[in-house]
């Protein structure tokens, strides 16, 4: 049964704005810690750009490894926001309410972090602008639109713009609440951002319409972004990469890892900000059921990739799958990947008690993301190590310290971004909570009173 606390408007305002308007002492501690983690990454990247790509473990022919794995991983995480915000908003699912903004914020920062990776991994970072910017810079040569590496930044920047607009436009009513309850420079800051929100019916109508339109418009972007990232691999002639299924496989994998990341984030937020009234076990239950469907769909696409990779029984592709499953270190990684990405989480998620336990959902979602990071690594590196029939050129790969620094630093950057956002703006949408109070209704069925919701 759901427990739905009855909360007054004043209580909602106070509790959700508490962290925004007042700074507890532990804020500085967490900020320093996250700053250190991010700093490690920053130092690693500066070292890389100053010295050269040689500080990484990449060699000939394994020229993409950790940085591209991490890139794909973060783009994957960024799909959570749209999945939850847009689709659940369009289907009017009640349980989205506390989750949407946090998911969207995770999207924006994960995507921005991901976008940094292709920029820093190139040999000549200072020339990246030629690559990305759609202009011929007086040289008469435009970017090569036939290259998947041009489709990438187009998709990512579209998604980034769309997500940012989405977050901002649904943030406006909450900014007005913050404006009305703060003084001094804070009031001015929120006042400017709130764009003069007064909360009259006309504005609410426009706000709702904007939310629905943006949700609908961002859905095609959501599907296309990770498909385009997958095209980096699918378009290449590398056996093991040149598979038609990569587009939907990557997208569903992104949703799997992204929604799991949202579950992790919700558990952390609930613990950190004491949001027990707002992030309840039934939210984790609903997230868990969504995860169950997505996880199984993901496994189907993984099986498609696996079975039909071997289907043609071409020597090169068989060798790559052999390497992925039987050769060290990929054999161990493959086992861990299967365990953490499917075999452990899915049966766990089938149990109601696990879905309703915040700790278990936190652990399960972390497992899923470990598995998905490994999935990308196993996809990318063995295929490059054993590329094509010229065995003399085959190689191995060992990651070096700057690459680990990059990976760890990326987690720090995303965490820092989300944390700072939660400090400046309320992380749980205030007006959505008030709306859910209004929409809550009860239905008497015989002798039982069942909680219901008013449908628009």
């Amino acid at each position, binding site marked *: 049964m759901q427990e739905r606390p009855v909360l007054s408007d004043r209580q909602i305002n106070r509790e959700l704005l508490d962290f925004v308007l007042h700074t507890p002492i532990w804020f500085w501690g967490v900020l320093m810690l996250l700053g250190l983690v991010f700093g490690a990454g920053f130092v690693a990247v500066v070292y890389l750009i100053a*010295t*050269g*790509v*040689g500080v990484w473990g*990449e*060699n*000939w*022919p*394994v*020229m*993409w490894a950790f940085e591209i794995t991490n890139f794909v991983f973060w783009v994957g995480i960024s799909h959570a926001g749209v999945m939850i915000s847009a689709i659940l908003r369009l289907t009017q699912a009640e349980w989205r309410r506390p989750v949407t903004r946090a998911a969207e914020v995770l999207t924006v920062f994960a995507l921005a972090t991901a976008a940094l990776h*292709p920029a820093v*991994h*190139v*040999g*000549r*970072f200072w*020339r*990246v602008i*030629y*690559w990305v910017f759609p202009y011929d810079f007086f040289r008469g*040569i435009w*970017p*090569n639109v*036939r*290259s*998947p*590496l*041009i489709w990438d930044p187009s998709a990512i920047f579209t998604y980034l713009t769309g997500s940012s607009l989405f977050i901002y436009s649904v943030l406006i009513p909450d900014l007005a609440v913050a404006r009305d309850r703060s003084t001094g420079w804070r009031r001015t800051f929120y006042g400017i951002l709130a764009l003069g929100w007064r909360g009259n019916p006309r504005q609410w109508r426009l706000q709702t319409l904007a939310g629905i339109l943006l949700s609908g418009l961002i859905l095609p972007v959501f599907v296309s972004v990770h498909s385009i990232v997958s095209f*980096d691999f699918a*378009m*290449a*002639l*590398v056996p093991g990469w040149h598979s038609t299924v990569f587009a939907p496989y990557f997208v569903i994998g992104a949703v799997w890892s992204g929604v799991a990341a949202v579950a992790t984030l919700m558990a952390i937020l609930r613990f950190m900000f004491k949001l027990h009234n707002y992030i309840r076990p039934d939210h984790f239950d609903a997230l868990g059921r969504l995860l169950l469907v997505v996880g199984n769909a993901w496994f189907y696409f993984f099986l498609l990739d696996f079975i039909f990779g071997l289907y043609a029984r071409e020597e090169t592709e068989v060798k790559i799958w052999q390497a992925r499953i039987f050769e060290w270190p990929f054999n161990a990684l493959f086992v861990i990947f299967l365990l953490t990405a499917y075999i452990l989480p899915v049966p766990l998620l089938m149990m109601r008690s696990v879905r309703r336990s915040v700790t278990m959902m936190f652990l399960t979602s972390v497992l899923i993301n470990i598995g998905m990071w490994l999935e990308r690594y196993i996809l990318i590196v063995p295929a*490059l190590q054993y*590329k*094509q*029939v*010229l*065995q*003399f*050129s085959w*190689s*191995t790969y060992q990651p070096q310290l700057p690459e680990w620094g990059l990976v760890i630093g990326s987690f720090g950057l995303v965490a820092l971004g989300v944390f700072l956002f939660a400090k400046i703006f309320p992380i749980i949408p205030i007006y959505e909570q008030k709306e859910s109070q209004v929409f809550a209704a009860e239905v008497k069925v015989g002798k039982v009173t069942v909680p219901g919701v008013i449908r628009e």
Partner: protein
Amino acid sequence: MVQQQRVRWGMVVDLDRCTGCQACVVACQTENNLPINTEDLFLQRRAFEWIRVERYWEGSEYPDLKARFLPMLCQHCTNAPCEPVCPVYATHHDTQGLNVQVYNRCVGTRYCQINCPYNARMFNFWEARWPESYYNYLNPDVTVRGRGIMEKCTFCIQRIRRAERKARAEGRELRDQEFQPACAQACPTGALVFGNLADPTTRAAQLARDRRRYRVMESLGTDPGVIYLKKVDPHAEEHA
């Protein structure tokens, strides 16, 4: 209007003549200002070899053990997989059938190497350094590449251009075998023959019509400009 291509630079590699001596590798390195490959670089799998001699062992035990050599270089494919994937057009095809690498344009995304089925492309992971005295030996006709740039065999395009300029100055056509890339020039057995494959009278074009001809990974449809001639097996009846 489609014109018959008048020049298509290509190379014929006769595997029956190749002894695996690697004179071609050294010559290429000197001609094209490649960094010196130390043992460390080889162990890191970052050695620069625009032409490399791949060695495959056939058989299991002496005296049945044989070494087979395959000189592998950029194949200058007509349908080059490396060309469409470069985001900045740093690699493209010119009208003479060469796959051209524009160092200045290259950002270093390394996608071209990933897409090259022959692994013919090298990346400058570090800034190139030579011993102090060696700087006098660098070839002034060839750019020294900085770090972060992809490079590969160019069929010694500097020699092609020089020969073309000379022929134009003397008001005549280029003659066959008038010039050669460094690898072909250094090969002691004449296993590497360079020439204009579009002109049927050149030595390269004639050799390319030999019945031993094949191209590496032909089924990929890349249409390479490097044609290999199969090694003759003197014990064919035993192995059949």
